[in-house]
């Protein structure tokens, strides 16, 4: 298949997200008035560069999946803009904007639940050919493309084209979802926990496939997962979210080797050690993430942070630049913030769980 043309040049971010906000009202009471709002996504700002894989990690309730749905425009944000390759998403076409229909042709999504995201009444071939047909391809051409894509995701078209989703295993269904996402030749694919529901041996197959397809079709990925090992394996850059905000972002090696934010460090330390001789004896963090309905004032992580001081409750930390595009939102990272360890982030011993031999 033909390569996708590049418009704004390689240096222009494929997707620039600015000040993205999504609050969900909680309604209740006699007249269904809004009682509170869930601050699911609260001022996200990041770029997705051309050809990269941006990993987004965080715990449940941190807004990862809301972010995915906002990026796909499956829901409208309360505030914020998204610029896709130089064009404002959802803005007036005459003003240089991109209509949602055109946007969605270039951005596609793969969901975690491989079964729920397929129409049980359509054959595999019809499922994949559906979107190309909607977007104006003739029926015959759409089917040809569907069969090409089936082969590309490693399922023999002759065996699979006419089968139904319930006849397939989880790994096969996820391959179908990936093929369907690629059917419109998108530039950006948003993968929301695409391997989390799969068994380990199948997870490895699908990850290998994603790496291959990215090279073959020149894709850009946003890869959302709670599995830090998988994110490390597949990402070029990593964004760490906590309660709807970015707490740290940077190249994958910087995040995994020189994590600055106490939350990122704790998250990394929560991974199983994979060596029974070095088991953890103390958990890196206690308690669960707070409720995003009323997040803590100032730094949202302060209630679980071992280094929290008065200033953390008073002011929201600024984004500090650690160089090489590695940014972190912590009072310890910026000099003059008022924190007793201000500007001495790396002097803080990482809250590593003590290990026993």
């Amino acid at each position: 298949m033909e390569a996708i043309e590049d418009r704004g040049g390689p240096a222009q971010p494929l997707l620039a997200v600015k000040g993205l906000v999504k609050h969900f009202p909680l309604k209740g009471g006699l007249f269904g008035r809004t009682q509170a709002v869930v601050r699911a996504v609260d001022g996200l700002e990041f770029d997705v560069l051309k050809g990269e894989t941006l990993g987004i990690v965080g715990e449940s309730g941190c807004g990862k999946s809301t972010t995915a749905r906002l990026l796909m425009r499956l829901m409208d944000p309360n505030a914020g803009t998204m610029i896709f390759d130089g064009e404002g998403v959802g803005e007036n076409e005459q003003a240089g904007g991109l209509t949602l229909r055109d946007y969605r042709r270039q951005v596609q999504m793969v969901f975690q639940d491989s079964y729920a995201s397929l129409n049980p009444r359509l054959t595999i071939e019809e499922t994949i050919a559906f979107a190309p047909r909607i977007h104006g391809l003739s029926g015959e051409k759409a089917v040809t493309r569907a069969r090409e894509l089936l082969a590309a995701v490693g399922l023999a078209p002759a065996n699979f084209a006419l089968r139904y989703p319930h006849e397939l295993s989880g790994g096969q269904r996820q391959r179908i979802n990936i093929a369907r996402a690629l059917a419109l030749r998108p530039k950006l694919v948003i993968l929301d926990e695409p391997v989390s529901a799969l068994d380990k041996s199948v997870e490895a197959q699908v990850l290998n496939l994603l790496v291959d397809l990215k090279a073959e079709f020149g894709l850009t990925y946003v890869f959302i997962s709670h599995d830090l090992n998988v994110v490390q394996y597949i990402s070029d850059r990593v964004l760490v979210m906590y309660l709807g905000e970015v707490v740290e972002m940077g190249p994958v090696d910087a995040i995994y080797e020189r994590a600055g934010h106490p939350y990122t460090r704790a998250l990394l330390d929560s991974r199983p050690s994979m060596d029974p001789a070095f088991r953890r004896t103390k958990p890196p963090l206690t308690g669960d993430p707070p409720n995003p309905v009323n997040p803590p004032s100032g730094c949202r992580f302060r209630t679980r942070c071992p280094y929290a001081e008065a200033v953390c409750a008073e002011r929201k930390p600024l984004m500090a630049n650690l160089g090489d595009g590695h940014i972190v939102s912590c009072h310890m990272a910026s000099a003059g913030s008022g924190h007793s360890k201000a500007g001495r982030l790396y002097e803080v011993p990482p809250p590593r769980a003590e290990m026993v031999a």
Partner: protein
Amino acid sequence: MSAVLKPAMTPLVKLRDLNVTFVTRDRTVHAVNGVDLDVMPGEVLCILGESGSGKSVTLRALMKLLPKFARISGSIEVAGKDVTKMNERQLANFRGTDVAMIFQEPMTALDPVFTVGRQIAETVQRHEGASRSAANARALELLELVQIPSAKRRLDAYPHELSGGLRQRAMIAVALACRPKLLLADEPTTALDATVQIQVLLLLRELQERLDMGVIFVTHDLGVAGEIADRVAVMYAGRVVEEGPVAGLMAGPLHPYAQGLLGATVHAGMRGQRLTTIPGAPPTLDVAPTTCAFSPRCQFVRDECLERVPVLRSPEPGRQARCVLVPYGA
């Protein structure tokens, strides 16, 4: 703690030739096909396997929690009692006092219309015949045991008012209410976040040591097994294909399936490398396998793999694997 140190003890769990077949009008599934397992008192055994390997069915058989249409054969002995011969009344006493179970999803395991404190106290009243006030006192003790902060206040909380991690702790408290000798855990940390998962694993290990319980912990995650297990049994297509102490198994698995599973588990430092995968998919188990069930996916397959189900071979004491490539020990 380790079974090796206590050779003279009688096993807490003794499973011999366990077979479970689910027969419905549409199809028959041979879920478990001859499982032998021993668990010593105070030992943590992890059953590691992918979906459909029969790990959860084996666990449920130990408590006779399988549906009516399941056909069970073989001998199941827990704490010296023959589970297969128990009637409903005996089972009701056996469950809770000798064996208790915790599940992946605490929201479905706890009753939404009773407070957490009441659910724990009810268990104590039912099994130990304690008075209501004594049971309530015990409930508070248990919530403190599982390290729920401000336990006194949480006694009056309903399950939906607790966070995921606290709910999981509350379910553990219900399970431990009558000091069972054996705790069965069916993927209790799979639905939790990483930072909470490690808290619950450490809690379980601490409680297991303090109460000297035997634990059978079912998981699909090798990393979780590494954090909690003394011994690991790897299941594939309803059989144990490898068994041994956790350190040896994670350092060098014997069975090609266990090797494949270790290779396919993504861990740190694999960036840029191609992940090794196990080609194909597990068998459907419509018929019980009569050969090595892994042979269609195995790169080392030989003629003898297809003649019969390989026997367990033990190359060194305490380790065994069901593969013709593994040497017999001296």
